[in-house]
């Protein structure tokens, strides 16, 4: 075995599909058949997962913090709503892409503001942009419907063939297909030299520039791509719920996203997906126990996660499965969830 092919083998180590990943997607698909009465909440989780994956691309890989990611979600949501409402682009998939591109244009334009400065500046700039858009959407109520939002959106069948049904079955599988395709793309991107250069920039921008990486260009590129993803998530929201209101721009939406990534972890793409599932389930659980104070419990969980550390939690959670498997097979359980690097 020559060293060069050895190096190639190891360089692609992370890019290869692991059994855990295949199992993960099969389970998600199975959920679609196992819980036909829960399509709405499951679709909601898929949207949140896609939105969180978008933030993970800039936060987990490039190290750009944002408190205003809802700006792109909102632009995607309103774009999809307007396209459907006025019959500009009737076919949903095409409209989805156009809405994503609209968010992408905004992402590109604002990236120049965001790449300047440090974390605190970025938090403020991103937050400011989202607030600005929310105010604009309220001001131009003749286009956006103001505080009432866009109403009377009727979705055409997908590809002119598959109509959206009232139980949300079509919406779920449509969202799942979009999420999976965009996941594949993101997976490809993060394992490319470009993706690796983002991690290098996050780790040490000084050194990144010193090996010839055009730092700003790379940051602009990934910020623009993430905006596209967030726009798609927003467009899915409008298409599957048939409403678009001002709260798509809300700061809570951006803040929730940070919480999702705190729960799921950053920098391995699955963090947003796993975090979205856990976040929504916790939200459901706590709001059934204490409808008024569920946010208290969410807050408590977050503090515990941050204090204890995610890796230790993984060990604890797998303690019992490990015990059982060791009894049966005489070896340790394999951690299906890759550890995040943060």
């Amino acid at each position, binding site marked *: 075995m020559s060293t060069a092919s050895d*190096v190639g083998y190891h360089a692609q180590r992370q890019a290869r599909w692991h059994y855990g990943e295949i199992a993960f997607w099969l389970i998600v698909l199975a959920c679609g058949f196992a819980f036909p009465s829960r399509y709405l909440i499951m679709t909601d989780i898929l949207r949140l997962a896609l939105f969180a994956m978008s933030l993970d691309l800039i936060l987990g890989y490039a190290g750009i913090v944002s408190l205003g990611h809802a700006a792109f979600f909102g632009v995607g949501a309103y774009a999809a709503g307007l396209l459907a409402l006025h019959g500009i682009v009737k076919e949903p998939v095409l409209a989805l892409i156009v809405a994503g591109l609209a968010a992408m244009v905004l992402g590109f334009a604002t990236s120049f503001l965001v790449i300047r400065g440090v974390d605190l500046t970025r938090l403020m700039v991103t937050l400011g942009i989202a607030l600005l858009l929310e105010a604009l959407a309220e001001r131009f109520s003749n286009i956006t419907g103001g505080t009432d939002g866009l109403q009377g959106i009727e979705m055409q069948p997908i590809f002119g063939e598959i109509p959206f049904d009232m139980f949300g079955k079509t919406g779920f599988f449509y969202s799942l297909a979009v999420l999976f395709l965009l996941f594949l793309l993101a997976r490809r991107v993060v394992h490319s030299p470009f993706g690796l250069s983002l991690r290098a920039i996050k780790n040490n921008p000084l050194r990144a520039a010193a090996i010839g990486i055009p730092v700003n260009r790379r940051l602009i590129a990934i910020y623009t791509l993430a905006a596209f993803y967030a726009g798609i998530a927003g467009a899915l929201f409008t298409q599957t719920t048939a409403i678009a209101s001002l709260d798509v721009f809300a700061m809570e939406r951006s803040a929730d996203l940070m919480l999702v990534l705190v729960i799921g972890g950053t920098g391995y793409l699955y963090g947003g997906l796993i975090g979205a599932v856990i976040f929504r389930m916790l939200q459901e659980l706590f709001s059934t126990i204490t409808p008024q104070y569920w946010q208290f419990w969410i807050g408590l969980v977050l503090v515990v996660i941050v204090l204890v550390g995610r890796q230790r939690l993984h060990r604890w959670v797998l303690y019992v499965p490990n015990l059982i498997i060791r009894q049966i097979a005489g070896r340790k359980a394999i951690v299906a969830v890759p550890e995040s690097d943060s």
Partner: protein
Amino acid sequence: MTIALETQNLEKQFGGLRVTRDLSLKVEQGARHALIGPNGAGKTTVINQLTGVLKPNSGRILLEGQDITDLPVHKRVLRGLSRTFQINQLYPDLTPLETIGLAVSERLGHGGDWWRRMGTRNDVNGEIADLLSRFHLLDVMNEATVTLPYGKQRLLEIAVAIAAKPRVLLLDEPAAGVPESERHDILAVVGSLPRDVTVLLIEHDMDLVFSFADRISVLVSGALLTEGPPEEVARDPQVKAVYLGEEAVDV
């Protein structure tokens, strides 16, 4: 003799403090040139201006006759000017394989490639393998840099700079902080650099400077005090007074 790297009347001020004073320096093609000076002489500030981290207030920097004064950091690297840092500047979470792979990919213009996976280009893989073995990093190529012993990190620091295939290499105290037992590896690597690579060495360690350099420039308070071959510089009474004198006191 052609000049690989040159500064013309370089001037840098931090507020009222002149840290580089009218510095005109010429480094010949293929030279082993050392820039020495007491603490606070402004050596690292000069390096930072040469590489583009800092912008000089006035003066020009020429790389192989081309004016690079206004070029950003990464473009100078692609033109063949690469450096190591006095304090390791590595990627803690990345492995040596990824770190070097990235440097090689960027140099070959594949850095912006967002579709093709890392490790699928044979020319890149070959170069990575070559560098890893030259710098004794093959056995740790899959470990996160932050977990490596300091000596290995130091080797990686130099390997990354070499991966850019520089024609001019700036070494900022390459052996700084390396334990005695691991020094030999570093010095051997620095000594075995191909002769067509021009090296500007910044160093405190006088043994290293006098064994390595064929030309020495002495920087004091941001200005050039003297310049010449090692024997001449060692004999210079001014240098003895300012630099070696200080060392003698230290001892």
